[in-house]
């Protein structure tokens, strides 16, 4: 197991180098030279050059790339080009609001989707199953933007059940007052695809011989579904959930913008709009690292869930 983990960690290095190179090329190719915006409405070539010098974008590409690599190694991405705020401070202060929305959303979404998937798989082919699938298909076809606009209008403005927008100072106030509607929207959006996917995983298992054997042994349907079937269906479910986890680090762009949640998603949009390379670099690298780590964790969890799995 230890050797496997070490090997996987070692394999992350070339992947990370690839990410660094890709981000660097993309930014320099399409990102634009931020000095022209930072220099203001009226600026001379000399002033622009001074800004380029201070940002380091006047250096040869290989020097800039080496600086980027050193920043990744030291986890110090410097300060934002547009606000001068330390990138580490941006990450530290914006991640909390994003996680306040996304962690409960992920947990609730997974639990509800698994429960519903087991239910509809159990009554597969019935009217209920078909109706649920139709609702899911319709739900999937609607853009999240529509959900946000409609829910914000009716539940927040018309009915006054939630605030229209905003963010407070305490965790509980944010979770209960401000994050409730965004979480509800997130649930409506995410349950439909999750439910369809998980239903497929469960259906793959429900026809297996071990299920028939369990029934023959006289086990209750609840035990068969929640223990035997769910355990065997959990590997693809874990893969799916783990693949979603790195997304926590980049927040939910639209939800954060519409509800004025000071999360990392809004910061990503701001950084792109402002060609703020230090922030873009940091977020991209953190997400890449998180993706690799969560993928590794998912592999380790397979072993925990199903001892037959061999880690090679």
């Amino acid at each position, binding site marked *: 197991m230890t050797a496997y983990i070490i090997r996987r960690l070692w394999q992350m290095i070339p992947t990370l180098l690839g990410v660094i190179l890709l981000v660097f090329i993309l930014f320099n190719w399409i990102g634009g030279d931020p000095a022209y915006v930072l220099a203001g409405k009226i600026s001379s070539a000399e002033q622009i050059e001074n800004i380029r010098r201070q940002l380091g974008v006047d250096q040869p590409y290989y020097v800039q790339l080496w600086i980027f690599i050193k920043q990744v190694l030291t986890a110090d991405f410097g300060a934002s080009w547009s606000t001068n705020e330390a990138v580490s401070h941006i990450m530290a202060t914006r991640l909390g609001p994003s996680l306040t929305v996304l962690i409960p959303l992920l947990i609730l979404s997974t639990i509800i989707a698994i429960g519903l998937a087991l239910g509809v798989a159990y009554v597969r082919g019935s009217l209920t199953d078909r109706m649920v699938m139709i609702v899911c298909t319709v739900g999937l076809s609607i853009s999240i933007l529509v959900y946000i606009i409609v829910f914000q209008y009716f539940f927040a403005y018309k009915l006054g059940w939630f605030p229209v*927008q905003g*963010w407070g100072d305490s965790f509980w106030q944010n979770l209960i007052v401000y994050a409730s509607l965004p979480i509800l929207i997130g649930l409506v959006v995410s349950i439909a695809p999750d439910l369809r996917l998980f239903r497929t995983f469960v259906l793959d298992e429900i026809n297996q011989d071990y299920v028939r054997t369990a029934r023959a042994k006289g086990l209750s349907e609840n035990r068969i579904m929640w223990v035997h079937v769910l355990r065997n269906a959990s590997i693809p479910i874990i893969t799916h959930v783990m693949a979603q986890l790195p997304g926590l680090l980049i927040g939910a762009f639209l939800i954060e913008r519409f509800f004025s949640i000071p999360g990392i998603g809004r910061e990503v949009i701001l950084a792109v709009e402002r060609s703020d390379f230090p922030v873009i670099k940091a977020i991209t690298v953190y997400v890449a690292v998180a993706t690799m780590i969560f993928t590794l964790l998912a592999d380790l969890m397979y072993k925990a869930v199903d001892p037959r799995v061999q880690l090679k």
Partner: protein
Amino acid sequence: MFPLSRLLATIALTAVGAAATVEAWAADPDKVLRIEFYVAETGFDPVKVQDYYSQEVNEGIFDPLLTYDYLARPAKLVPRAAEAMPTIADEAKTYIFKVRKGIYFSDDPAFKGKRRELTAEDYAYSIKRFKDPANKSPYESFIDGITGLEQLKKQAEKTGKFNYDTKVSGVQALDRYTLQVKLKETDYNFAYIMALPNFGAVAREVIEAYPDDTNGHPIGTGPYRLKEWKRSNKIILEANPEFRGFTWHFEPGSDPLDKQIVAAMEGRKMPQIGRVEISVIEEQQAAWLAFQNNELDLLYLREQFAPVALPNNQLNPALVKQGVTLNRITDPDINYTYINTTDPAFGGFTKEKIALRRAIWMSFDNAEYIRVIRKGQAIEAQYPIPPNVLGHDPAYRSVAPYDPVLANKLLDYFGYKRGSDGYRTWPDGTPLVWRYSSTPSSRDREIDELWQKSTERIGIRIQVAKNKFPEELKQERACQLLSRTAAWIADYPDGDDFMQLFYGPNSHQNNSSCFQLAEWDRIYEKTRSMPDSPERNRLYRQLWRMVEVNGVTKMHDTRYRNMLVQPQVVGYKKHPILLAEWMYFDMDGSRRQP
């Protein structure tokens, strides 16, 4: 009141527009103004920021020497931290400002528990900061005209350290309260520069105490101070207890609203509002719903919601019923499309090139642009100086109005023949393609479509290139961008701020079309040494006619700024130049609708 006191009070009030009281005035902490920014601020170091919203906050925190009269239109300069308007000497090459005595910075640990008075030296230091290369100031060019600063900057570039203690001929504190500024050339507009929020005074101790985060420590002498800042989310300001306060007194203009404001506000001690809460709400739907929920006191209505809030350009009856009012001004801005006059294909001043450019402009329907892009919330611009800016000419009519029939005739006459595919070619028969650049935003895509529709009318093929904004600027500064639709908003309300957009030596800066004509430049240079006057306006008309005749630019529009105002806001009037009017109006909680 004793007659003599009344007389003295009247004199004082008349002298400065808004007279300061000697003692500090405590605003009411229960009067809370809630507003929104739809773009996140970047910081509050006046030298380092350039975005509208950061500057709005800075205008509340810092004191420039001058400001604008709240009600006068066109905008009129009045003293703020200065005792009076500056003494202008030496053909407007020397400005002498007297800083008002007894103005104090809001408290900060950098002052070590002592009250810190504002002095002329603070302004000298603050002005020098614009030239410090380490500050990368976007407003550096605004003080290029001051003598001696460029040498100081050059020295800093050599040594790596900007020496603020070096005496500079152009910026000197003659005594504790007298600031002298010397300019290289005559400039009647320099006083406007001293009214920009960026030119509020900072204290050197504070800047040196927080060298790595000057954006986060705005300590000024203005009416408000920063209480809380959650970056890109919430900014809370509270009344500065050190602020000197003043008594509300402004002369009403011709606008009937002015009389109502004067009747409501005259004689009040200001500021009244004790707390300003600013939420960053980027999506208009959220801001719109929050305003309707009475969670915001003022709303800058963006075009997207104009059809709902202002059907037929009248305030929605439901809003009227709630007591909401509309305060509308024309922004001091212009939106225009240009063609690079140095472009090898489309540039130059031969008759056929001028005809081609003018035909392109005549194919474009501004009325449609205002209807589609602005949702009716703009007026057509025919002149480069917008309303409420000195030099504006409401009677001017463009020589290239929307007229596709005439545009086609013009092209036919100069030999731009249509090919078998219906598109025109150059007179030599090679394909004619107009390259137009825009950003990938949805707004720009709509404008692209209008241009495509327009050029179809005259059989000219258009090629739209998508670039990020910094890339467009880079190409534009190199005079390599053929054309794009650009905007310019006034830094100060004088025509010069707009006319300089066509000045030859400003190519590679903000003369986007890289237009250069010796005759034009000569006349423009003459206007620069003139104060606002009928003669200068005559020359401006002549200059603009030359730009139009040469087919350099197509003016599109000047936008409305529609402010929706809740009934609890008293005495509010949007100013065309001031950004933060909070110190001039009041809140009345009893008028709040449930």
